[in-house]
């Protein structure tokens, strides 16, 4: 079953690290969005600073576009290796636009439409090959119909500090690119591409990445302390907050190691801050003793765990959903926690925002699971509805006789902080009494464990419901969690459009899960879980939490995300 992409064009930029693909992507996508087109982009890159082969996929459409497709309509290669790197994605409809020397002899290019545009020589005419990227932006923007003034504006902002000459040369380069685009269009070399209609409302939408959504969500959650040790793909969230540190009064700390990061976040919450830790699997592994500390002391803590393929160093700049069980079970001893896994940018914002409130209220660790793909993917959306969010604070003013771990009906003991009120705030990593004294009493131990698990039941009761798309009476239920949302959703839509009786259930809170979600599974004759990992970790969890048996798992663990096409193909096998 081939998918027809009637309303969108997919452009791939491919070249070496250091060649400025990211610059082309940023300028082009921003200009397209501002011009009123829906835009999606996602990056795939190697773990190196220069060289190698990276690619960016951009999708442009008259309608909303938020998922990743394999097919390439236009390929812009920047190196000789580029075409072969994406060969599996090329077809006779693919059009390669670039310096012919880079691909004319490549067997992988032969079936494609080849258009010779030497960005570099045009740039040199302007004065330096450094302008090639702007030429390329011009060509693509021209072909796709972005308004030139937006690019001009963007270039001015970007290069202002480098002087007027640089700005005007870049503008020249873009202009030359537009001219080339006109020539190409006139020459009839291009295949027939969908023609777009722009909508002004889209032009003023937001255009952001997973990274941005998580970081903004943190700020909206009242985050005023962030600790991290650099590690792809989690560092960007830290860098974002660092950039805004003075504006929002955020302590931003690149710590000596991950262990320090979590223990600082712990100290910060203790003193009344709202701290975030951002990390990836290997860093998280080092933090799990600290997680356990938060567990026993009932200290709120918010962790952003941006997954990448392991074990160990694994594939530092690739993607996977392989750390669900790590997030769920690590840390010694039993204690409750909450795991979110946003599927959309809006959820990334709102769940990260909410994570701070939930952590503060229930005094448990809240972990937000994203991944490389999610963090490095961008699309436009109308708004984040930030005005609907609120920083909820649960810190009390303590009295002299305050006891930190008072037993209560729901297991939540009012939390004080030093300096607010007259009580003393004592927290201890040992098993403790209500008044934080070390104890080895068996009854108190048991009661303290039970107290903490009462909170888990509260959390389970108020868990975010999964999203059901489609008819609840459908014969087949596709299930996924976290970053796969849009790709699976679009694939299921495609199947539904072809007449299959399929519904889709997506979990953005993956733990705890209330037993009541059973009802979503009731009618389905076949239940298929889609996960970007090797062992089907979420399927196991569903079994344990809800008692649901899964009939089929669609797993991918190559280090790359599911594409629309492969999902349609894989799922179709299962639905007929």
């Amino acid at each position, binding site marked *: 079953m081939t998918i027809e992409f009637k309303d969108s064009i997919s452009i791939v930029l491919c070249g070496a690290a250091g060649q400025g693909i990211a610059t082309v992507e940023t300028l082009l996508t921003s200009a397209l969005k501002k011009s009123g087109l829906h835009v999606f982009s996602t990056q795939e890159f190697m773990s190196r600073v220069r060289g190698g082969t990276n690619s960016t996929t951009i999708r442009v459409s008259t309608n909303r576009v938020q998922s990743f497709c394999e097919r390439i309509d236009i390929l812009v290669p920047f190196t000789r290796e580029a075409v072969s790197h994406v060969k599996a994605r090329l077809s006779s409809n693919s059009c390669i636009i670039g310096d012919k020397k880079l691909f004319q002899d490549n067997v992988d290019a032969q079936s494609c439409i080849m258009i010779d545009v030497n960005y570099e020589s045009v740039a040199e005419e302007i004065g330096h090959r450094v302008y090639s990227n702007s030429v390329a932006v011009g060509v693509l923007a021209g072909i796709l119909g972005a308004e030139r003034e937006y690019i001009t504006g963007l270039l001015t902002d970007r290069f202002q500090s480098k002087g007027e000459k640089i700005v005007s040369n870049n503008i020249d380069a873009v202009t030359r690119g537009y001219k080339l685009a006109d020539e190409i269009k006139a020459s009839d070399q291009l295949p027939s591409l969908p023609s777009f209609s722009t909508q002004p409302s889209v032009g*003023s939408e*937001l*255009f*952001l990445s997973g990274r*941005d959504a998580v970081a*903004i969500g943190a*700020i*909206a959650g*009242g985050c*005023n*302390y962030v*600790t991290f040790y650099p590690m792809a793909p989690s560092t960007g969230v830290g860098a974002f907050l660092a950039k*805004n*540190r*003075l*504006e*929002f*009064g*955020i*302590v*931003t*700390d690149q*710590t*000596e*190691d991950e*262990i*320090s990061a979590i*223990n*600082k*976040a*712990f*100290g*910060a919450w*203790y*003193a*009344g*801050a*709202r701290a975030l830790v951002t990390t990836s699997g290997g860093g998280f592994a080092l933090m799990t003793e*600290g997680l356990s*500390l938060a567990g026993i002391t009932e200290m709120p803590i918010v962790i952003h765990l941006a997954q990448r393929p392991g074990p160990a160093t694994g594939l530092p700049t690739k993607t996977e959903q392989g750390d669900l069980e790590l997030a769920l079970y690590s840390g010694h001893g039993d204690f409750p926690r909450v795991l979110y896994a946003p599927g959309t940018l809006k959820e990334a914002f709102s769940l990260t925002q909410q994570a701070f409130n939930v952590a503060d209220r229930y005094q448990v660790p809240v972990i937000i699971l994203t991944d490389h793909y999610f963090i490095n993917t961008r699309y436009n959306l109308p*708004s*984040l509805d*930030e005005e609907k969010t609120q*920083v909820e604070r649960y*810190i009390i003013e303590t009295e002299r006789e305050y006891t930190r771990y008072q037993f209560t009906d729901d297991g939540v003991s009012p939390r004080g*902080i*030093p*300096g*607010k009120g*007259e009580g*003393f*705030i*004592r*927290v*201890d*990593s*040992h098993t403790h009494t209500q008044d*934080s*004294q*070390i104890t080895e009493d068996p009854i108190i131990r048991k009661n303290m464990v039970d107290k903490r698990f009462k909170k888990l039941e509260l959390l389970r009761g108020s868990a975010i419901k999964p999203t059901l798309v489609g008819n609840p009476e459908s014969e087949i239920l596709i299930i996924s969690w976290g970053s796969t949302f849009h790709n699976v959703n679009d694939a299921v839509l495609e199947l539904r459009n072809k007449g299959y009786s399929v519904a889709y259930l997506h979990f953005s809170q993956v733990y705890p899960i209330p037993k009541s979600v059973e009802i979503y599974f009731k009618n389905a004759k076949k239940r298929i879980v889609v996960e970007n990992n090797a062992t089907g970790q979420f399927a196991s969890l569903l079994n344990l939490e809800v008692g649901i048996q899964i009939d089929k798992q669609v797993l991918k663990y190559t280090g790359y995300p599911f594409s629309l096409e492969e999902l349609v193909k894989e799922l179709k096998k299962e639905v007929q």
Partner: protein
Amino acid sequence: MVDTTDYDRDVEIHWCPGCGNYPALKLLKETLVEEDIAPKNAVIVTGIGQAGKFSHFIDGNMINGLHGRYLSNALAIKASNPKLQVFAISGDGCTFSEGGNHFLHTIRYNPSIVNIVHNNAVYGLTKGQASPTSELGVKTGVQTLGVYNTPFNPIAVAIAQNASFVARAFVGHVEQTKEVLKKAIAHHGYALIDLFSPCVSFNRINTYQWYRENTYYLEDDYSPFDQKEAIGRALERGKLPLGIFYINERPTYEENIQIYKNDSRPLWQRELSKEKLTSLINSFR
């Protein structure tokens, strides 16, 4: 005014009779009272070990965290609320072995905290293994051939790291130690006190008497502002100097992060500005 009993806590103390932690506790409490620091403005942050139990035997705010990690807790408390007086206290194993990396780096950050390391040259709580400061040749149930790793010299390492206040004291000398402690509290920046504190159960070498006989005070005219000079004194073998080795005042972490420059309120008293949030979000339009 803080009362002499304000820091007393009615709990059973778990240390062995004669342990150096008793005089250490007493002199800390007295100093806090003499310096008129109210318990509600102080936080005692400890790691795990016998010295780590300190926070339980004194009234007030406290964290008894993980083995080795208390300096990270302490730094963040100070950065979240610079109005709090933060005392970071633990043992030599906790600080220099499990927590060695945080020791190295907390010095670089230079938060205004007082870091007291109860150095008994042994792992007390886990029953007598060697610590990084144990002397060469000491035999234990684990170091059955005697210690052969070169002893860790915290004073020298701290000065090499350009720590802003570096002192060594001995629990047997109450008045002098209180003096050092007062200076550490008054110091603007990270202050290390390597506190010799005998473990009477597991360290048969470094006894009260041994410390008395093998230490002396830096001369009255010793100037603690010269790094080379200070480290030279730190490297002395034979009798070990006590007192303040090195002072190098410079901007603290709380100052460097700048967020308290125009607004001295601790983080918990601040509100998120919705306008700023919206304008940040709008910058993505």
